[in-house]
């Protein structure tokens, strides 16, 4: 039914908006993004940047109040306009999602095995036994110790780290082309986070990964490409090494210099002043201008387009101190 395309997923001019008393306000404001097979792309941004809403609409599971426009192409299917039946066939099969809090995303009254088998059998006409064999294989692949015993467990009987491994197993079980992971380690402890980051970096098989995170260090840890979002727009993107060593957008630079480091001199941190605009706030020009030390009249008059991987009139060069 679906033409296996060369691109895992292609997003064209995606706009996601919500009704407000003053009409529809966009939280995702015209995004273009291509994720190729095997890519590990991090979407980095603060709360309100639109990164989660973009992820949800890629699977067609955005809140019902949201209005989605543009194209989200998986093969020759546009998820934005696809019929429910078509979208359902793609979800969990071609594209799947890992959420932040595994305890609220797994069904508490069903065993791990029954939840994973359901996903296998929904998309493949195979016997219960064959499905269980695949469940066992994927639980082993994501590093769950004693997987045979764990299959019979309920989610509450597992630790947070194991639950997140189960979530990843559920996302991987049908060998999807793309896994969207939304802050998959935020709810986990430090040493468990390190385990899951390892798994996301090297245990995803052939699936491409889109990692949504607010933490540049987590992004750098797992991915090979970083896409920085601010207030609904992509403002900069590039390979990890380039974004870290030579960030050009003042917002990316601000994010990098705001993180505390193991700096023996313990200099005062460099916060980005102010706060992002709210959803209904009308901002003429660049949406970052009011917080940007490089902004001038041009920045408040017109909005910079995203050209050559950056949306800024005054890109900066050199490493961030």
């Amino acid at each position, binding site marked *: 039914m679906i033409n296996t395309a060369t691109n895992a997923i292609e997003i064209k001019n995606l706009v996601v908006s919500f009704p407000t008393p003053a009409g529809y306000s966009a939280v995702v404001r015209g995004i273009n993004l291509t994720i190729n097979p095997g890519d590990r792309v991090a979407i980095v941004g603060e709360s309100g940047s639109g990164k989660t809403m973009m992820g949800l609409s890629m699977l067609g599971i955005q809140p019902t109040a949201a209005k989605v426009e543009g194209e989200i192409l998986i093969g020759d299917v546009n998820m934005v306009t696809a019929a429910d039946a078509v979208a359902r066939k793609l979800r969990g099969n071609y594209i799947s999602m890992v959420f932040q809090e595994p305890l609220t995303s797994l069904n508490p009254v069903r065993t791990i095995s029954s939840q994973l088998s359901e996903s296998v059998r929904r998309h493949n006409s195979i016997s219960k036994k064959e499905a269980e064999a695949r469940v066992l294989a994927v639980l082993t692949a994501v590093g769950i110790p004693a997987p045979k015993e764990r299959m019979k467990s309920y989610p509450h009987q597992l630790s947070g780290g194991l639950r997140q491994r189960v979530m990843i197993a559920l996302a991987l079980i049908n060998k999807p082309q793309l896994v969207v992971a939304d802050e998959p380690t935020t709810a986990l402890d*430090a040493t468990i*986070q*390190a385990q899951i980051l390892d798994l996301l970096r090297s245990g995803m098989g052939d699936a491409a990964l889109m990692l949504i995170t607010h933490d540049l260090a987590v992004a*750098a*840890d797992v991915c090979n490409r970083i896409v920085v979002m601010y207030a609904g727009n992509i403002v900069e993107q590039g390979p990890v090494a380039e974004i870290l060593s030579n960030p050009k957008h003042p917002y990316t630079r601000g*994010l*990098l210099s*705001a993180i*505390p480091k193991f700096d023996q001199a313990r*200099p005062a941190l460099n916060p980005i002043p102010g706060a992002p605009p709210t959803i209904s706030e009308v901002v003429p020009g660049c949406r970052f201008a009011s917080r940007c030390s490089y902004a001038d009249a041009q920045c408040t008059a017109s909005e910079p387009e995203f050209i050559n991987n950056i949306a800024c009139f005054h890109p900066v060069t050199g490493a961030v101190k």
Partner: protein
Amino acid sequence: MSPDKKLINAVDLSVTFKVPSGSLRAVDTVSFYVNAGETVAIVGESGSGKTTLALSLMRAYAPTSGNLFFEDEDITHLSEKALKDFRKKVQMVFQDPYSSLDPRMTVSQVIAEPLRAHFKLSANERDEKAGESLKAVGLSPDFLNRRASQFSGGQRQRIAIARALALDPKVLVADEPVSALDVSTQAQIVNLLQSIQEERNISYILVSHDLRLVYHLATRVVVMYLGKVVEEGACDDVVANPQHPYTAALLSAVPALDEASRRDRIVLNGAPPSPIARPTGCSFHPRCPIARPECSTNTPELQTMPNGRKVACFYPGELQPHISFTSSK
């Protein structure tokens, strides 16, 4: 006041909770102190007892055994009434300013609440004090009549800090004070906490899992695992040269911007065991990369080393993480 004056001093403090299957010793014979003007960080994962320890240092929990002193006075068993002065001097800032502030209260009501509890002031005097508190956290006194729900996360955390400062406390307990905030606003709050400390010589007890933040703010660090202190020392020293393998693993687990730290990461197996079913011997041995057979039978005591560092391990210093230090000096 001499610089080494202990404000809060806990000696062999234990806190035990009753659970259906018996008892859970959340804090197990922990000694802890904080001097005037210093920042002590309590570090550990969930279930380590770090928050329970912080709360029992505030006498939010009554200790099951051990003693708690405030300015040399034994307050372990003081009644709530007798604790009133202590409550004034030890205040708290919580993790999530969306749940720690009542969204329907005005900022002035939020900040005046502790003032009302401790002082007999007129409404005008309270408003004046609340306004001063707001100014101290970098907010305009014009905000006094707005409701907490009208503010962003960073502004709310400033209001929460203003509320804690209104009583002019000597100790501020901050439990993950920036982890619910966005990266760009985290730095604002961190800088604010530092400047408040410089101005007021206030002591901080910082509970955090973020070791970069701990390194930035703390003078001393206490590392907890399963209710016990496994390592304690000057922050510089502990980060540069961790003695306990758990400290090494925690430091190594910090998501890093550099390739080398990532490549040489120490990744522990499994998760911390339940404090109800504590492993025999050293509690850390089932996850420890350098555990020997004796570690599962003998329990290492917290030993003081010549430089004042404390560590509970039979093989201190053996496991070292790769950390990329920078120096902007």
